């Protein structure tokens, strides 16, 4: 099945900082999603982005399918952005495969 790798594994930032999270995947995909798992354990859909660029407020994402990577940008970080960010990809008949996540801590 497809392999999904995320970097960095951990990131600590001050409030107001910007960050870029990366997701590499091993094969062509027809579904790529970014999720935020908040401190209460909920998985929140951020982006459905198998290709192209999308923006939602302070967050944006870009997937370059031909080069097999996706980036999640967080601008002007807030403490509520803390949590684990997951990238997940899907190919063929397989289920959505998750990366190990980036654990983000935003300090006030």
């Amino acid at each position, binding site marked *: 099945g497809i392999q999904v790798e995320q970097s960095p594994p951990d990131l600590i930032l001050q409030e107001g900082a910007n960050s870029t999270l990366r997701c590499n995947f091993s094969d062509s995909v027809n579904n790529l999603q970014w999720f935020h798992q908040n401190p209460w354990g909920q998985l929140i859909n951020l982006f459905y982005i198998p290709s192209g660029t999308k923006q939602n407020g302070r967050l944006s994402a870009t997937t370059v399918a031909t080069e097999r990577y996706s980036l999640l940008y967080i601008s002007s970080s807030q403490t509520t952005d803390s949590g684990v960010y997951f990238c997940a990809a899907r190919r063929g*008949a397989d289920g959505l495969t998750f990366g190990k996540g980036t654990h983000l801590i935003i300090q006030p």
Partner: protein
Amino acid sequence: DTAVSQTPKYLVTQMGNDKSIKCEQNLGHDTMYWYKQDSKKFLKIMFSYNNKELIINETVPNRFSPKSPDKAHLNLHINSLELGDSAVYFCASSQGRGNTGELFFGEGSRLTVL
């Protein structure tokens, strides 16, 4: 209004017991999933059903048996619970048997086996 709902949210039980987790979605989707998140936060697919038909069955012990009475419901029954079954179990749904549908997750059910 919850799109994908799971019950119970917390479950504490003894080794050897049998337990079930229920999942319902009101999004009109036709495909539902069970995922397991272990203590290291790693999420892995267990099962997937499309219109009550099992389409993904990963390497999961036979003690785990999914059941889909209709396309809006997918339940997970676990027999003879073991310590290693302690985890958070997430239900999800998407539209279409094809692989392009966006997945939406429930809030998770935290299972603790003592």
